[in-house]
């Protein structure tokens, strides 16, 4: 098989898998949020509304692609793809099991971090190109949020990389055969998940797209398939982050009984459900509180986390000590945040 | 039904009479509320007095209404004292032509929108109002729909697309 056929097949398969997953996730989110809100969610389209997201997708495809008269044409029309492509590129190196991966990179973790930071360009393009103040506000919020939360996210992953002495995701997963990193670095996991929520623009950090304030933010002027691509990338990003978390913290496919890829998907979906649960429960922070939280709480904690892992590596402490210290730090941090929530109080 | 029985009401009337002596105001009590009718020129000073007098303390402007009686406008100020629970009414008669009244926004900030509403609905000018622009009506509408002379019709013919 020539290499280009091979790579096209792999990428195509991944794309189809992702689109199907997103359709399923949209349905799942609506159902799940519905149940939390004591209602049924979609019921009419197919059994239990299973075809609802398919119907929505078809509707989006058929809708008119509107462009505001004063929009910056190129920025406006390119933006959805500039957002989607980097997020999709993450999946190039996400291993579903030891063999099931498009291309396993030695610098996998580094690559993911590098690529995922790019999609903000598309969001800023969308915000700028829409010629809409709400969009611009949303884009600026998004950029500020991305910069602030990229740091704790990367530092949390750095703790893992230090511990594993590798950036290769397969290696990192295989080291967790007996003890997932969740138990090794509970603090790192907490930091990662919180920062990931912000990266995903998910509640309680959905400030850039806040429906009740900036009415969808950068996506306010989009319709039809371009909006659909934004929506798709939002969910693909959700899968990517949950997949990454399940790989580096929950041990990926490394659990007995079930086939490896199944374990991976179970863990990923469990994390996605948690993120959805948070979304359906929590109100939204304000932008200054969000910034305070990132710079004054998450970032110092991330350094503490690295410090603990560094000490552990340097002095070869037994595993349980680092677990305990990390857990204790996580609890102390949670208690502190609980009593002194971020943000100035006027 | 009202908090002030006739006895208390008398005392408020007496109190008002003492405080407002020399302001040349008429005091009457239909429906159990003290009513003071005042000339437009003296309105603001009277209101300030009613608000700042320690024995009266009418610090709350309940309502500001304008009524078109055909030959004159009447502005009706319903006042309330949070501290004492007193209620009273101040009335000002102003002519239909040259309908000008002093604004009481300097006394009670809550008069702001009430005066703007009366201004656009009746065409009354409130001198001293900081921002006397139309409030409820469509921009550029120079009619005064609540005047009795204004017919009960739509302010503008329906356009295409109006439901």
């Amino acid at each position: 098989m020539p290499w280009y056929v091979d790579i096209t097949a792999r990428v195509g398969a991944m794309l189809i898998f992702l689109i199907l997953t997103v359709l399923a996730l949209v349905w799942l989110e609506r159902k799940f949020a519905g149940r939390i809100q004591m209602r049924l969610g979609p019921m009419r389209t197919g059994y239990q509304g299973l075809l609802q997201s398919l119907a929505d997708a078809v509707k989006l495809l058929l809708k008119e692609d509107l462009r505001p008269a004063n929009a910056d044409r190129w920025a406006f029309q390119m933006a959805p793809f500039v957002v989607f492509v980097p997020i999709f590129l993450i999946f190039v190196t996400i291993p579903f099991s030891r063999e099931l991966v498009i291309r396993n990179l030695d610098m996998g973790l580094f690559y993911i971090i590098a690529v995922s930071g790019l999609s903000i360009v598309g969001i800023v393009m969308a915000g700028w190109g829409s010629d809409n103040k709400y969009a611009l506000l949303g884009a600026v919020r998004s950029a500020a949020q991305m910069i602030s939360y990229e740091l704790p996210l990367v530092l949390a992953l750095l703790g893992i990389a230090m511990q594993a002495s590798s950036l290769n995701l397969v290696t990192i997963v295989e080291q967790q055969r007996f003890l997932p990193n969740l138990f090794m670095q509970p603090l790192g996991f907490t930091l990662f998940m919180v920062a990931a929520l912000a990266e995903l623009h998910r509640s309680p950090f959905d400030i850039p797209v806040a429906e009740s304030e900036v009415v969808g933010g950068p996506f306010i002027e989009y319709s039809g398939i371009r909006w659909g691509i934004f929506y798709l990338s939002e969910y693909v990003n959700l899968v990517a982050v949950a997949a990454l978390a399940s790989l580096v913290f929950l041990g990926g496919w490394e659990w007995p009984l079930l086939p490896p890829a199944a374990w991976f998907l179970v863990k990923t979906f469990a994390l996605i459900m948690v993120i959805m649960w948070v979304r359906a429960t929590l109100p939204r922070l304000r932008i200054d509180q969000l910034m305070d939280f990132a710079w004054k709480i998450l970032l110092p904690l991330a350094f503490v986390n690295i410090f603990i892992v560094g000490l552990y590596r340097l002095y070869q402490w037994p595993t349980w000590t680092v677990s305990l210290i990390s857990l204790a730090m996580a609890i102390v941090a949670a208690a502190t945040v609980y009593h002194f929530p971020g943000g100035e109080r006027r | 039904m009202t908090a002030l029985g006739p006895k208390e009401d008398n005392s408020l009337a007496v109190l008002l009479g003492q405080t407002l002596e020399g302001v040349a105001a008429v005091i009457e009590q239909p429906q159990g509320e003290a009513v003071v009718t005042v000339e437009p020129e003296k309105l603001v000073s009277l209101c300030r007095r009613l608000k700042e007098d320690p024995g009266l303390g009418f610090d709350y402007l309940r309502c500001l209404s304008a009524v078109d009686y055909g030959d004159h406008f009447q502005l009706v100020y319903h006042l309330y004292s949070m501290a004492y629970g007193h209620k009273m009414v101040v009335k000002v008669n102003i002519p239909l032509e040259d309908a000008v009244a002093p604004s009481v926004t300097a006394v009670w900030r809550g008069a702001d929108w009430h005066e703007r509403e009366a201004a656009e609905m009746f065409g009354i000018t409130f001198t001293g109002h900081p921002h006397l622009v139309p409030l409820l009506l469509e921009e550029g509408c120079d009619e005064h729909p609540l005047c009795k002379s204004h017919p009960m019709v739509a302010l503008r013919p329906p356009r295409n697309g109006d439901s």
Partner: protein
Amino acid sequence: MQRQLDTVDMTLNMGPQHPSTHGVFRMVLTVDGERIVAVEPYIGYLHRGIEKLSETLNYRQVITLMDRADYLANFNNELTYVMAVEKLMRIEVPERAEYIRVILCELNRIASHLMFYGAMGSDAGVFGTAFMYAFQAREKIVAAFESVSGARMMHNFFRVGGVRDDLPRDFGPIMARLIPQLRQSIEDCHNLLGHNEVFIARSKGIGTIGPQEAIDYGLSGPALRACGVAEDLRRSDPYSIYPKLDFRIPVGKDGDCYDRYLLRVEEMRQSLYMVEQALEIIPPGPVMAQVPKVLKPPPGEVYVRTENPRGDLGIYLVSQGGDKPYRVKVRAPSFCNLMALEHLLRDCYIADCVMVLGSLDIVLGEVDR
């Protein structure tokens, strides 16, 4: 070094088509980044000329207009108007009718506050959950209203001299089921938002106003009580059967969004308590006084005010002796509360603006009339 970067303020038009301006309210914000520098409210998009219309309809027909002023507290609005006409005509209302009115008004207050709760939750950014919690409870109340008046919202049920019909025969059992459910719902709602750290961080200390300023601006209802002024017309200027009922007037301390929220939650509990009491001691008897076929109040004027869910609703009614009111002025609580918006939004962020507006709980039908 001089400032290298010059920034200019941006004008941001919020509304009238914005999901969280609670209808067709519009404000023009001048913002410096995320911070609000100035705010200019614009209202009138829902102006239907209720006051002018009232002058062309007879006294009974005006009740239907009052339903449409504050469309979330229909019974309370009807009550104010019919009380004004009754006071003008000196009609004694049968006691049973008074009880029915108070029961319905207090239930309506709960429904209205639940609506506030849901909208405030959505404004704060809860993805629909608060709204759904509130609406499921509100739905039950609205269903009970339907059993009484036949309509879910625009009831046209109160009459000058009483109420249109007696309560349905199964109203007692309906309420016996409803009250515990409502009590549970209110607590559920409060548990979802009231103790949430994010919600507290978003609402505490935001949109504060002191008692002196609040009185000066003419605030009323929960917005006034939240700053510590224990002014409730049901107690300070009692009407109907409120003197016979036992209830507490919750009072806030800081006058911020969180206090306004807490206060309304407590008011819901108190209203529920009042409904329970009223249902226990409701006397039998007629529900309609003897009133003439054509209502022609004697010439005169009357100002009646009641405690609406949103505050002090006043109706200034002038009669010249005909069968139509000469002048009806509605002093809408939302209208007056909204005046303080500029004060409340001082030094706030754009996100707070939504919270403050939500905590004022305005109804545009009443603001614009």
